[in-house]
């Protein structure tokens, strides 16, 4: 049986970076992906609702990204509104995202030192910064340097997206309240870049970009990996467990081919687990052996614990200033502006963390106000129409604290279609989360009121989570007792095992995690390359 230099499990943001970097560094890489490729020819992005079987109301556009046979999960002991993302497709969440790419601030990596909560990351912003820069230049990010301490900037941005009327009004009102509004930074091309065309502003980022203007692993990373001649891809390969040798070192991955339903193995010298926060923990917990009776690299019982992610809510505002104006094409590239965290700028708080606001990432096609306005008849219909041009959506993303009591585990009595124990989610909000939520709600309600318009909000009903931003289940750390990985995303117990997706995060901030996932993965890939040269792997 052939032995690859590296086996990358998972093809999302982390796996794509890992495969590309290692192939270019001379390694023979095989990538396993449980899902399959959904090429642009299968995207339904531009279909009108009335061209779809259920008008798109049953997620027809996104159904190909969520094959039912491999997306089972069970919720147990969770607060209402908590949900984890189960996307399983070649490219993972990069095929199905708004592409907001924000750097963590230096302070985001030092919560224990600065705020007295959680743990510090085992690496500094200065150590991560070159990898942020590397990724931004590789994938193409639009935006600008806004000179904000809480949101560090890179050195090379593509031109920012033009602002809509509602966003300029938001900036004007925000300025009067000390709420910053900046051009969003996202991996959407505003000019040709890396042989890809610029965005055509159809608003379908989340449904699959048919021209590769948004960053995805299949469009941007895998071609570079393939160009080296050292890349092998196995789709429909559902990893069951990682097998170890008698010394406890990772030796092979056992996987099921979804097309043949046969079990196979692939051997490698190094394994990079990039399956995302739920699946990576599931894989390690399902990888039990005499050397690792509680799961791979889990003698301290940390794997699966510290599950957290963004909690958030939304406010729809139909601005009086724009009501009744002539309809214009507002689709764009979903969000064009971003409200970075601002609660650190004023006063002392009784909680740690803050929130950011993503703006206008929802579709302009369907008038959500029609589901909220009371009444019916001609006046109702006219009001729906009159409000629509003024639509402004604010989606809040709040930091949630990592806690050992929140975790994902596996249920050996409940298996998926391939006999693999499914993940089980346990999650409860903590007091800090609730205190932050209360302050966020009051602040955003005031912002909405100052904007003047018809407002529909769900903030009052409590937070939802995790907006696909789950992190923390196989975390890095300084303390071997409370972490599974060192600062290079390397398992402390299994030296040829790396985990570079969101599960490696020590803590979360209010910022979207994907850019940090990619930077961590690139940094880990560099470490693997150097260790291989030294013969240490």
């Amino acid at each position: 049986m052939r032995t690859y230099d590296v086996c990358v499990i998972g093809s999302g943001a982390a796996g794509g970076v890992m495969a590309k970097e290692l192939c270019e560094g001379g390694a023979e890489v095989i990538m396993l992906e449980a899902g399959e490729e959904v090429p642009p020819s299968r995207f339904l992005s531009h279909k009108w609702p009335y061209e779809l079987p259920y008008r798109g109301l049953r997620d027809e556009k996104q159904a190909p990204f969520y094959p039912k046979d491999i997306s089972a999960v069970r919720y147990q002991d969770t607060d209402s509104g908590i949900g984890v993302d189960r996307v399983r497709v070649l490219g993972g969440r990069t095929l199905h995202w708004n592409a907001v790419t924000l750097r963590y601030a230096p302070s985001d990596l030092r919560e224990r030192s600065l705020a007295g909560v959680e743990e510090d990351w085992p690496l500094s912003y200065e150590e991560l910064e070159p990898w942020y820069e590397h990724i931004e230049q590789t994938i193409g990010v639009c935006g600008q340097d806004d000179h904000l301490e809480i949101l560090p900037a890179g050195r090379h941005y593509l031109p920012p997206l033009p602002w809509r009327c509602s966003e300029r009004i938001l900036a004007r009102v925000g300025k009067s309240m000390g709420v910053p509004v900046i051009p969003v930074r996202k991996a959407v091309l505003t000019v040709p870049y890396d042989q890809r065309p610029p965005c055509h502003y159809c608003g379908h980022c989340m449904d699959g970009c048919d021209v590769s203007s948004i960053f995805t692993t299949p469009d941007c990373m895998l071609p570079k990996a393939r160009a080296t001649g050292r890349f092998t891809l196995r789709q429909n390969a559902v990893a069951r467990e990682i097998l170890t040798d008698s010394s406890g070192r990772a030796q092979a991955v056992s996987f099921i081919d979804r097309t043949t339903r046969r079990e196979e193995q692939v051997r490698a010298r190094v394994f990079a687990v990039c399956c995302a926060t739920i699946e990576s923990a599931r894989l390690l917990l399902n990888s039990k052996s005499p050397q690792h009776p509680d799961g791979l690299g889990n003698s301290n019982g940390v794997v699966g614990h510290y599950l957290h992610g963004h909690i958030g809510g939304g406010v729809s505002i139909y601005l009086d200033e724009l009501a009744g104006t002539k309809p214009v094409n507002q689709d764009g590239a979903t969000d064009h502006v971003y409200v970075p965290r601002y609660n650190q700028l004023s006063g002392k708080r009784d909680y740690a963390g803050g929130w950011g606001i993503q703006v206008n990432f929802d579709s302009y096609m369907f008038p959500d106000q029609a589901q909220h306005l009371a009444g019916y008849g001609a006046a109702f219909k006219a009001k729906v129409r009159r409000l629509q041009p003024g639509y402004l959506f604010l989606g809040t993303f709040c930091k949630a604290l990592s806690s050992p009591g929140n975790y994902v585990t596996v249920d050996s009595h409940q298996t998926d279609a391939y006999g693999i124990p499914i993940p089980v989610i346990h999650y409860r909000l903590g007091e800090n989360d609730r205190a932050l939520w209360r302050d966020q709600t009051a602040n955003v309600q005031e912002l909405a009121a100052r904007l003047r318009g018809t407002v529909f909000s769900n903030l009052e009903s409590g937070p939802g989570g995790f907006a696909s931003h789950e992190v923390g289940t196989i975390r890095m750390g300084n303390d071997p007792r409370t972490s599974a990985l060192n600062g290079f995303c390397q398992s402390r117990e299994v030296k040829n095992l790396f985990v570079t997706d969101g599960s490696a995060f020590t803590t979360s901030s209010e910022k979207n995690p994907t850019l940090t996932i990619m930077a961590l993965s690139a940094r880990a890939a560099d470490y693997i390359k150097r260790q291989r040269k030294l013969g240490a792997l």
Partner: protein
Amino acid sequence: MKRRQAIKIVTLGALAASATEGIVTRVAEGCAWAPGDYRLAFFSEEDNRLVDELMEIIIPADAHSPGAHAAQVSLFADMMISTSHAAEQRQWRQGIQAMRDEASRSSAAQALAKAAASESHPEADLDRFFVALKRMTVDGYYTSEIGIHQDLNYQGNTYLSAFPGCDHAEHE
């Protein structure tokens, strides 16, 4: 849970779990639903006439655009309900019967007005049926060609070479 649903939780806070599990899924994804040759699968002809009448009262034709009747929203409703959960089907069976009984004593318009009286705090079955009926009307109408193009005059879902940003001085 699908990512879009996760975000909808962020936006609307309404969905707790997949609302589509257990629903009959059509094989031919991407095929357009064609009202012209549509055959009722859940409503009787009599049901359909009543639902059509009620929906047209909810979103009527006006000088600006046609309403729910022209958009054939009742046929959309039939398709959605016929492929939905038993509990939803039961609510519609009972709701239609209750509306029919009420309308026979007065009129469809008065029956609808009675059902809608407690829209913000629905307690009785009839109140809840109005909420479901209105939601279905809204969903069907604003995803139809008439709703999207003629009523809302939606300008998007197209290919632009540049995005025209706001340059209105009053929005600065």
